[in-house]
């Protein structure tokens, strides 16, 4: 075995041409730990999506509609006409392989079908077979099908699609390295739309979407529990600071509507970030009279509809704007989230925009116009806070974060999806003295995904998540060992949950923090008492011995 692989053989280029090798003939083996459970019939039904039923990916019979092949063919046809990018991405790949080793799932799992070029080829091979002239002609001669790199749509092919398009987090890292800018994420998005036409969604996406549709957030938390939770945070904050931050709910005529992913309200450690928002809003109210309201109806900034279909994404997105209209606010401020921003930044305007009934966002305290949010009317809180700091509007005590030795994980969606690179770093450096970057090939536009994005943050696929998150964790481990980094900052709710587990497996010494948790620790509220603990109720630096 070992003598087959000589070092020079290792350096050989892999042949990515479609007809090469036998990858097209293999049947897929769905492995435990690598796939997510099937969507519950009930959730699919709520959304009015087709083919709601109980099914199991491990069983032979997926209980597909009888004409499933026809559905797929028509779906591809329709999307080729509707989305120019999809058609272009199907045609122009030259199989140069530049993207091959850029996907965290390939790097972590070692499965060649997780190379972006092969992932795309799974669908492209069927496209070629069904929609290109060359393939139609070649099909007529024996063995010609292979030459064209095409293959017919069979059940095995569908299962392979399903397995591998749910091993892509739509992170777009591969597109950064492709000379043609081919974005495999877009191909995954199309594939997942097609799955939804056949009732093949996963439950970790379908049930949150259904919850969000019914109750306004992914967890299906009722408005009163949402309010209870924020009030409980206010009690904790009062205990720490002596100040009652008094969150406001559904207030008509407030200046700003604040919307954040529900993970910040209901899941640790996002809950501490949420407390940071509350402290900030109280500060701005007392100092500058800024009126911010929460909504118990638009209680979800995230949008798992994005991982389902364009239509579902649109439905969930529209509720935030409906609520902003109902309350009559000037504009919307959004919390620390990843894919929520990709939806706002790249899709909202064409889907539900322009939101003309809102005002073009201006920071009333600094006068700054948020030009990039001119049409969507929704501003990222990191940009908002960075602007306040830049204008000297916040009084901050960095020493309260002195025990945090920070690095920063760029979320795929905020970095590659909207170019929000400097603002979070600027905020971090103004609330904390110790900041160390991870290596350049793992941050900013080249950031490695957490491995759990795009609805893959389930429990049953944890091996996939840990493997996919390895490239990220590996870079964190490096700064931990080199600079003693103990805190991984992030501005995404999925990251806060996913990276926490990822760190426990790969670098247990590192904890995950949202940026506004650090802001909440550092910000000096008017009239506050001397704080002894941080928001996690752990002693502040220098206070460790006081209660002994």
């Amino acid at each position, binding site marked *: 075995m*070992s003598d087959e692989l000589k070092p020079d*053989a290792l350096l050989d280029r892999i042949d990515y041409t479609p007809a090469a090798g036998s990858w097209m003939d293999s049947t897929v083996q769905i492995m435990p730990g690598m796939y997510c459970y099937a969507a519950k019939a009930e959730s699919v039904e709520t959304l009015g999506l087709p083919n709601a039923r109980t099914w199991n990916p491990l069983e032979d019979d997926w209980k597909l509609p009888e004409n499933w092949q026809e559905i797929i063919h028509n779906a591809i046809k329709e999307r080729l006409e509707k989305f120019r990018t999809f058609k272009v991405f199907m045609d122009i790949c030259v199989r140069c392989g530049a993207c091959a*080793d850029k996907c965290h799932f390939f790097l972590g799992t070692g499965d*060649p079908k997780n190379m972006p070029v092969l992932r795309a080829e799974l669908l492209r091979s069927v496209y070629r077979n069904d929609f290109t002239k060359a393939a139609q002609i070649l099909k007529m001669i024996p063995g010609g099908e292979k030459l064209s790199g095409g293959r017919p749509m069979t059940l095995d092919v569908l299962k392979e699609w399903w397995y591998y398009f749910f091993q892509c987090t739509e992170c777009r890292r591969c597109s950064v390295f492709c000379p043609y800018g081919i974005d495999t994420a877009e191909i995954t998005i199309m594939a997942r739309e097609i799955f939804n036409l056949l009732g093949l969604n996963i439950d*970790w996406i379908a049930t949150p979407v259904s919850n969000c549709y019914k109750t306004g957030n992914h967890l299906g938390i009722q408005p009163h529990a949402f309010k209870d939770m924020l009030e*409980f945070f206010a009690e904790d904050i009062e205990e720490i600071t002596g100040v009652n931050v008094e969150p406001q709910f559904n207030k008509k005529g407030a200046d700003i509507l604040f919307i954040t992913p529900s993970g910040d309200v209901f899941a640790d450690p996002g809950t501490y970030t949420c407390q940071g928002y509350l402290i900030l809003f109280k500060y701005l109210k007392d100092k500058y009279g800024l009126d911010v309201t929460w909504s118990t109806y638009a209680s979800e900034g995230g949008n798992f509809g994005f991982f389902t279909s364009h239509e579902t994404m649109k439905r969930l997105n529209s509720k935030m704007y409906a609520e902003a209209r109902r309350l009559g606010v000037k504009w919307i401020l959004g919390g620390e989230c990843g894919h929520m921003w990709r939806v706002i930044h790249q899709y909202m305007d064409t889907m539900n925009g322009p939101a003309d009934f809102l005002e073009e966002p201006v920071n009333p305290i600094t006068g700054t116009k948020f030009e990039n949010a001119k049409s969507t009317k929704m501003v990222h809180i990191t940009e908002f806070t960075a602007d306040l700091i830049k204008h000297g509007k916040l009084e901050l005590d960095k020493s309260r974060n002195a025990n945090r030795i920070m690095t920063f994980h760029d979320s795929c969606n905020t970095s590659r999806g909207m170019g929000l690179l400097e603002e979070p770093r600027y905020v971090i450096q103004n609330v904390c003295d110790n900041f160390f970057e991870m290596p350049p090939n793992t941050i900013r536009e080249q950031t490695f995904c957490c491995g759990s994005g795009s609805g893959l943050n389930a429990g049953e696929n944890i091996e996939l998540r840990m493997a996919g998150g390895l490239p990220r964790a590996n870079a964190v481990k490096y700064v931990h060992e080199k600079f003693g980094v103990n805190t991984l900052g992030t501005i995404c709710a999925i990251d806060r949950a996913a990276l926490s587990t990822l760190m426990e497996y790969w670098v247990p010494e590192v904890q995950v923090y949202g940026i506004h948790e650090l802001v909440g620790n550092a910000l000096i509220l008017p009239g506050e008492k001397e704080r002894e603990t941080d928001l996690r109720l752990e002693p502040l630096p220098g206070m460790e011995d006081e209660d002994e």
Partner: protein
Amino acid sequence: MMPNQLIDLNRQLELNKEKILTLWFEAAISSYPEDTARLLGKSKNRFDNPVGNITRQSLEDTFDNIIRMSLAENYKDYTNSKHSQTNKEHVGQNRVENSLDPVIRIRAVQNFSASQAVAFVFELKAIVKSVLGKLPDESFNYRVDLVALAAFNRFMKCRENIFLLKATEAKRRVHSAFERAGLVTELTEDELLGSSKS
């Protein structure tokens, strides 16, 4: 083996370290599909190619520990727990296990069976034999066996780690926030062990 024979063998291992390590690394990564193995062997940048580089480093550290192993180490240190708790060589076993951790930790999440995950350790016997020629006795193979046992230990620990994360993630993230807020009191077994769907 006489002490000077041991010193001699260790010196041989040191002298041929690069060659042995290259072959051992190739053997380890040939457990991946061919296309993957080629890419893993290619980039020397530890961030662009984490699996390749971590594997290489972990094998090197383990190899160094094999050279440091003394003859006094024996199977009993592994099979008799009472014995091993007090035995000074226990430190040596921990050292080997720690140096294996990075490579095993990766393989524990890559869909390898336990035997596939640790099989690369045994390949070292044939590799060393092919590089050094005939060995004076069985002592080197015996050291490799000890490493293999350490690899099994570590693999099991990593898998336990994974199971625990899987079982408790939802509880720790979502339910603990609710519990602190006093919004839930008790959880059913199902909620605790189910997937994080809630």
